[in-house]
């Protein structure tokens, strides 16, 4: 079975310090992996995606993530946090189903707090 585990439900950092949001996945197939961000009372926005090309993926707003197959991890990082980064972040895996659809499987989310 496919699953996603976000290791921290809350992460708190000071503005200007690095951000690390951790994600581990389990998938029987070669997966596609994504990070989405959700600001309060908003929909979800794609930050970045991995689809079996380069293992280091760059996304919007200075975020990046590295796919490590040996560790089954896809951690999200940013060198310097900004107040506007405060939001909830979701790690998502898309295993391929028998009907060829791509059902998204979400982690439980990590809420990022950025302190002034």
């Amino acid at each position, binding site marked *: 079975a496919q699953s996603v585990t976000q290791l921290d439900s809350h992460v708190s950092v000071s503005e200007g310090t690095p951000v690390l949001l951790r994600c581990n996945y389990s998938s029987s197939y070669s997966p596609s992996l994504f990070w989405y961000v959700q600001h309060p009372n908003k*929909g979800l926005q794609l930050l970045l995606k991995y689809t079996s090309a380069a293992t280091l993926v760059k996304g919007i707003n200075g975020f990046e993530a590295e796919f490590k197959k040996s560790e089954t991890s896809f951690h999200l990082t940013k060198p310097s946090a900004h107040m506007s980064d405060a939001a909830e972040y979701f790690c998502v895996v898309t295993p391929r189903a028998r009907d060829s659809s791509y*059902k998204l499987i979400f982690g439980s989310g990590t809420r990022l707090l950025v302190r002034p």
Partner: protein
Amino acid sequence: DAGITQSPRHKVTETGTPVTLRCHQTENHRYMYWYRQDPGHGLRLIHYSYGVKDTDKGEVSDGYSVSRSKTEDFLLTLESATSSQTSVYFCAISEESGRPKGNTEAFFGQGTRLTVV
């Protein structure tokens, strides 16, 4: 922004009443999904569709039904709403463009906040 419209955006209903939520897309994407979002659970898949009249269950489908009679519309129905169905509901769309480079990212609507009292 992807052309996805959810309606209504907010709804309060009484226990035992039927409720239908609508998702409308203008992108002509093949796949459409309904998720619910609850604290501590992320988003959980209710039902999805892989074409007109082709639908299947997700992980939390009990108490919900769906229909897709046109490519652009995907309806979620709560036949008899219960308080446990109070949640925020998100519609999503995606389009497969093949493996191994599958461009399978999904685009989300703004959500519908449903309260069952």
